[in-house]
């Protein structure tokens, strides 16, 4: 219980990312592999566009690194929609065994964590871990129709459109070093328009356990990147870290890196794609180039459904921590 796994033999071999047009127009726009021309991506529904993004990011993992489907033992991926329809449908043409993973917006880290343990244990040689989200499909699943003239709260985050995938194997420049799976944390908050504040205690809990288990301090990482806490969630996490006398100097948030402040996305980007795309196209290259020595990715997820919110239940949250390190 409460274990942090320390791995010796698992590496990120490569990454691929696909994002929507407004994410492509943000500050990291030039770094993503594919930017969609529009939100619907030539499909007849946004759900189909979302799964096409995931399929494209998975296929890119094969194409960019010259692999064939039979070189992979397993795909671990997930999304935010009911019955994981994006992931389940995306992989049907790939001819690679698949296990669907759900951790809400922490899905990317959960996929990497599970995949890395399988590689470390020697059961598989090479797996792909991925996650995707789409603004319009998430709005429909969790909120209102997109064309409805509602005013978003300042605390609300903006589910981003995108998909990110990584190849995990026994070779590569970036090592998957430590994994701490999160405990489901519920501090009794109910506001689905303020998920940053809901998830901050989960991020804090996992981070604290991760550091305690390893006897480390936050300063031991070049960067501690939460998934999609957004501006409000980050303030709350800093409060919690401050109360525990932990330094928050190297803290960043994937969701806060995606959009420019002029894009009017309120508290920042959220969704599975936030950590998936920012890690794949921003942190991973920086680690490969040695500009970052190690990064602790702390993807966060709010584990609610519209039904639980309408029944006035509080929102449980989870965060999974994975430390990546540049191989010397």
């Amino acid at each position, binding site marked *: 219980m409460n274990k942090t796994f320390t791995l010796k033999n698992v590496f990120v071999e490569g990454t691929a990312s696909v994002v929507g047009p407004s994410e492509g127009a943000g500050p990291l726009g030039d770094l993503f592999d594919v930017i969609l021309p529009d939100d619907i991506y030539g499909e*007849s*529904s946004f*759900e189909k566009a979302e799964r096409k993004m995931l399929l494209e990011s998975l296929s890119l993992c094969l194409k960019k690194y010259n692999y064939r489907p039979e070189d992979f033992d397993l795909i671990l991926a997930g999304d935010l929609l009911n019955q994981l329809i994006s992931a389940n449908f995306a992989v049907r043409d790939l001819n690679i065994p698949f296990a669907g993973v759900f951790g809400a917006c922490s899905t990317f880290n959960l996929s990497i964590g599970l995949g890395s343990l399988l590689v470390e244990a020697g059961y598989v040689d090479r797996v792909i871990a991925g996650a995707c989200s789409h603004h319009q499909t998430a709005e*429909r699943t969790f909120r*209102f*129709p*997109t*064309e*409805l*003239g*509602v*005013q*978003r709260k*300042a*605390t609300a985050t903006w589910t981003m459109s995108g998909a990110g995938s990584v190849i995990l194997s026994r070779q590569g420049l970036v090592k998957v070093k430590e994994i701490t799976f999160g405990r489901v*944390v*519920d*501090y*009794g*908050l109910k506001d689905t328009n*303020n998920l940053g*504040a809901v998830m901050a*205690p989960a991020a804090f809990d996992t981070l604290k356990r991760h550091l305690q288990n390893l006897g480390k301090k936050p300063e031991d990482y070049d960067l501690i990147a939460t998934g999609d806490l957004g*501006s*409000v969630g980050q*303030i*709350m996490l800093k*409060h*919690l870290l401050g109360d525990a006398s932990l330094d928050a100097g190297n803290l960043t948030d994937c969701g806060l890196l995606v959009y420019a402040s002029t894009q009017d996305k309120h508290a920042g980007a959220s969704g599975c794609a936030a950590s998936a795309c920012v890690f794949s196209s921003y942190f991973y290259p920086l680690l490969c180039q040695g500009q970052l020595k190690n990064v602790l990715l702390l993807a966060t997820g709010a584990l609610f459904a519209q039904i639980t919110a309408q029944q006035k239940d*509080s929102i449980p949250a989870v965060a999974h921590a994975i430390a990546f390190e540049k191989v010397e």
Partner: protein
Amino acid sequence: MRERESPQSKRYVRLVEKEQPKVSLKSNLANAFLIGGGICVFGEIIRTYLLYYGLSNDLASVWMSIALVFFGSLLTGLGIYDEIGRIGGAGSAIPITGFANSIVAPAMEYRSEGAILGLAARMFIIAGPVVAYGLISATVFGLIRSVFR
């Protein structure tokens, strides 16, 4: 004790309330007034125009409402009304154009699930409750009025 009922959680909930970003009541009210007022002025222009061409007062009001519903629907279809709503808030939700928006937006959204179970069944998910409770309160107030006439 469950974590969500612990003193630590309660303290955190209070802290979250304290850290809510401050919304400017002044600019929100001003935006709602300008956009809501603008829609009403537009309606008045239509009504005055109709009266000028000889329609009766009652008929001009009805046609004005129909015209506003049309423009609300058109702007929703063009993807403009949600942008107006983002700024106007209640100013664009309360007028009849907002009612049109609340029906057309889900109709567009659920078109992909077909004309019957998608579009037609779902178009009232937001306006439906307004109609239901509107009818109930109209009945109640109608009864009260008939008693105290």
